[in-house]
């Protein structure tokens, strides 16, 4: 490689490095994550199945509630560990975390408490709960699938 060629390539290399740095610095939200997407779709199915059981007694499904709660918390923790992922984390929090300053938060803990207190829920209540929780999961799934695939 002669000197003339080398001196011509320098600005190109500098420019490429600058552009890569700029691209990284300009990201405001995480890229698509297949594991997070699979978690959300799988948990949606399992959660809706469990809600369907709420016309039966809570006590006969207490173990399933506990198991699902752990799996939901794992998915939430996974998303919490991803950089630039605040919107997805906030979506999970509305679904899973009851905040004293937001009475509408904690959709699932409120449902579980309601089921536990009443023993069993009416078919209409269960159908409506399934309808809203299904759409709640869709929002988490749609945001993840809408992220840039790297």
């Amino acid at each position, binding site marked *: 490689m002669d000197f003339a060629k080398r001196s*011509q390539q320098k*600005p*190109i290399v500098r*420019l*490429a490095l600058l*552009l890569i740095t*700029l*691209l990284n610095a*300009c*990201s*405001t*939200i995480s890229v698509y994550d297949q594991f997070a997407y699979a978690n959300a779709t799988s948990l949606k199915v399992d959660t809706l199945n469990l809600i369907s059981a709420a016309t039966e007694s809570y006590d006969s499904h207490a173990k399933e509630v506990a198991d699902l709660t752990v799996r939901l918390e794992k998915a939430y923790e996974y998303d919490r560990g991803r950089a630039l992922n605040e*919107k*997805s984390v*906030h*979506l999970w929090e*509305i*679904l899973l975390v009851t905040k004293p300053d937001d*009475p*509408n*938060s904690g*959709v699932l803990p*409120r*449902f579980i408490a*309601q089921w536990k207190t*009443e023993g069993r*829920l*009416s*078919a*209409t*209540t269960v*159908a*409506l*709960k399934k*309808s*809203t*929780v299904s*759409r*709640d999961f869709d*929002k*988490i799934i*749609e*945001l993840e699938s*809408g*992220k*840039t695939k790297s």
Partner: protein
Amino acid sequence: MAAINMNEIEKQIAKLALSDFAQFSQVAISDGKALATAIEQDLLTAAAARAGDEMTEVDFEEEKKDLLAEAEMEKLKQEGLAQVRIDEFTAGVINIVAKAALAAVG
């Protein structure tokens, strides 16, 4: 080193902005309409069930909270998707400028 064609860069960025954001706003409007319809439908069902005593007052209040939570979640989803579009637009602009600069460098 040749001069960078700024007119061409401007044209390409304008084209990118039009395609990226026009499509995004259409999807957001459509999502908003779907949300309004779904919430209206569930609220009517819940009100009818409450009136017919198929639902307790507590359950009815819980349903209202769920629908408010859903509206908040839709807002967050749209904000997140807007961030994705902005990131993609920024990357697109950098790509356009890079191509033009590299072409000028030779």
